[in-house]
C-alpha cells in the first residue's frame, strides 16, 4: 500500500499560480464572486502564500503553495463528529461530502487553515457548468471541502495498474497542480518507496514539514529556498 505524499520545492516555485487554477478546474472548485471573495470566502484548495522579508531595496519574497498536507495524525479528523473527514489506509485525508453536516469544527481545528467551507450554494453560470469534471463531485452549500490529493487521479491510475496486474509506477500519478506547474516544483508519489522521486526529495537536507512541531505528521514536505552561493558545488545533495 503506497503512502502518498508530496514535495514542493519552494526554490523552484515562481509564484505563477498555474497550480491554483489547475486545481480549481480539475476539482470543480466554485468561484465565490467579488463580494464573497472580499470577505474571505474564496475557496482554493491550493493557494500561493507570499512571504515578504526585508525593506526596500533589499526585499526578498518567497512563494509558498499551500494545500492540505494530509496529516498523519490529523486534527481535522479527530474533531469531526460524523467521520465526514477521515484517513484512508494509503495516507489520504479524504472527505465524504454527503456526510458532512457543516459544523466547521475541522476548519477551526486544522492548523494550516486549508479547509474551505461552502458558505453559499456554488454556482456556475450557464453554460460554464459544462466545464465540470465528472470525475469529481460538486459540493453544495453547508459542506466543508479541501484538497484531496486528486484522489480521482490516484484511483484511476491504480485501477489501470490493477488491470495490468502490476503496482503503480513512480510518477504515474500526477495531481493537477503538479502536472500544471511549469517549474516542476511539485512532486507527488509514494513516500514509502525508497526509490520514488518524492521519497528521495523528502530526505533532502532542504526538506522540512510545515508546523512539524505540532506532531500532525504532514505528508507534504517543503524544500526550503536556497541562496545563490556563487560557486558551483558539484555533487552536493541540495
Amino acid at each position: 500500500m503506497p503512502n502518498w505524499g508530496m514535495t514542493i520545492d519552494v526554490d523552484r516555485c515562481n509564484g505563477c499560480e498555474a497550480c491554483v487554477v489547475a486545481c480549481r478546474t480539475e476539482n470543480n472548485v466554485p468561484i465565490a464572486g467579488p463580494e464573497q471573495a472580499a470577505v474571505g470566502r474564496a475557496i482554493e484548495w491550493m493557494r500561493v502564500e507570499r512571504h515578504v522579508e526585508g525593506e526596500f531595496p533589499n526585499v526578498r519574497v518567497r512563494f509558498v503553495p499551500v494545500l492540505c498536507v494530509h496529516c498523519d495524525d490529523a486534527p481535522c479528523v479527530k474533531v469531526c463528529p460524523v467521520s465526514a473527514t477521515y484517513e484512508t489506509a494509503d495516507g489520504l485525508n479524504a472527505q465524504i461530502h454527503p456526510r458532512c453536516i457543516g459544523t466547521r469544527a475541522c476548519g477551526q481545528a486544522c492548523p494550516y487553515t486549508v479547509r474551505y467551507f461552502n458558505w453559499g450554494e456554488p454556482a456556475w453560470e450557464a453554460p460554464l457548468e459544462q466545464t465540470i469534471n465528472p470525475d469529481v463531485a460538486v459540493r453544495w452549500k453547508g459542506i466543508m471541502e479541501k484538497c484531496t490529493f486528486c484522489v480521482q487521479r490516484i484511483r484511476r491510475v491504480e485501477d489501470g495498474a490493477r488491470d495490468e496486474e502490476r503496482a503503480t509506477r513512480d510518477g504515474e500519478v500526477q495531481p493537477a497542480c503538479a502536472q500544471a506547474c511549469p517549474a516542476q516544483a511539485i512532486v507527488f508519489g509514494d513516500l514509502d518507496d525508497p526509490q520514488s522521486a518524492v521519497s528521495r526529495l523528502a530526505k533532502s537536507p532542504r526538506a522540512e514539514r510545515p508546523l512539524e512541531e505540532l506532531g500532525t505528521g504532514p505528508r507534504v514536505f517543503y524544500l526550503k529556498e536556497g541562496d545563490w552561493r556563487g560557486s558551483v558545488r558539484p555533487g552536493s545533495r541540495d
Partner: protein
Amino acid sequence: MEASDRDRAIEDSLLRPVFQTGRGMWITLGLLLAVVAFGGYQWWRQLQVGMVVAGMNQPVYWGLYITNYVFFIGISHAGTLISAILRLTHAEWRRPITRAAEAITVIALLMGSSNVLWHLGRPELIYIPLLHPQPLSPLIWDVVCISVYMMGSLTYLYLPLIPDLAILRDRSPRLRWFYRALALGWQGTSRQHALLERAIGVMAVAIIPIAVSVHTVVSWVFAMTLVPMWHSAIFGPYFVVGAIYSGIAALFIAMAIMRKAFHLEAFLRPSHFNNLGLLMLTMACLWFYFTFAEHMTVWYGNEPDEMAVLNARLYGPFSTVFWSMIACCFVIPLGILSFKRLRTVAGTVVASCAVIVGMWLERFIIVISSASYPRAEAVWDAGRYVPSLVEISLTAAQFAAFAMLYILFAKLFPLVSIWEVKEGDAAEVAIVHAALAASPDTPTTRIAVL
C-alpha cells in the same frame, strides 16, 4: 395566626402570578415574540441562501452562534449547580430561589443547544451525529453531556415541582388535567414526602458532576484543538468557573425581577442578596485568577502563534472588547461587591448585569480572537469577522426567547416553591415559638407580615 392560615397566605401570594396576568405582561410577551419572530425570519433566510448571510468566513469559521452556545450553556449553571449546592449545604435562604434557578438552567440549556441548529451548515442532518457518532470528537462528548444534563436538569426541576403541581391541580381555575397528569397523584403523605426528599437529595448530588462535566466538555471543543489560546489545560475549570459566575449573575437578575414583579420582598430578603453577593465576589476573584493565569502563561511563554492572539486582545483589534470584558467581569463587580454597603439588591443587580455582559464578551473573545489569528498567518487578512444582521437578530431572538419562556414558565408554575417555603416557614415558626417560650418579649412582627 394558625399554621394553616399562614400556609394559605403563602400559597395565595405565590400563586397569584400564576393565576393573574396583567396587561403589561401581555405587551411584554408581544414585544418579545416580535423579536423572536424576526430572528426566525432571519434564520429562514439563512436556510435559503446559506451561511453567506452570516458574518463568518475563513478563518473565522465559528462566530456569534458558537459564542451564544457557550454563553447560554454557561448561564445554565445558574441554576441546578447553585441550587444543588445550596440544598446540600442546607442553606435555608435557598428555599425561595431554587426553582427560579432551576428554570433558568433548563431554559438556558434549551437556548444554548438550539444554536447548533443555525450554526450547522446542514441542520437537516442534525441527526447524523446520533446515528453515526465519531466518539473521538469533542463535539460528540458535548452532545452526550448536554443531553444528560438536560435530562438531569429537567428531572431536578420537576421533582420539587410535584407538591406544587398538586396544589395547582387542586386550586387552578384552568388546565387542571395538565396539572393532574404532572402531579402524579401526589397527596403529600409522609411516605411520598420521604421519597421525594430522597430523590431530590440524590439528584442534587448527581447533578453537580454532570454540570461540571458539561462546561468542561464545552471548553474541550476548543481546548482539544491546537488553535493558539484555545489549546489550554485550564480551559475546563476556567469555563466551569465562568459558567457558575455568569449563572449566579443571571440568578441575581431573575431574583430581583421576581422580587419586584411578584412582590416577593418577604421571601427574597436583602440578606440573601448579601450572601449570594459574597459568593459572586468569590467567583469574580476566581474568574480573574483564571483569566490572569491563562494570559500570563501565554505572555511569559511568548510563543509567536499564541502571542499573535494575545496581542490582538491586549492592544489589537480585540482590545476594546477585551478591556470591556475585564471591566465588566472584574473591575465593576469587585468595586461593588467588596463593600457590604453596596451588596444591596440594586448593587448586586448592577454587578450582575455587568457580569452577564462581560461573560458574553469573554465567550466572544475566546471564540473570535483565536479564530481570527490561526497559525496560518497568510489567512489573517482574508476577512475580518463582523457579525451580520442574521447573527445579531438570532442573538437578540435568543435573549428574547429566554425571557419569553421564563415568563411562560412563571405563568404555568409558581416560580417560588410553595411547599419548600412552607416547610421553611414551619421550621422558622417552630424556632420562633421556641424563642417566644424562652423570652416572651421577642416581637413576632416578621411572621405577622405573612
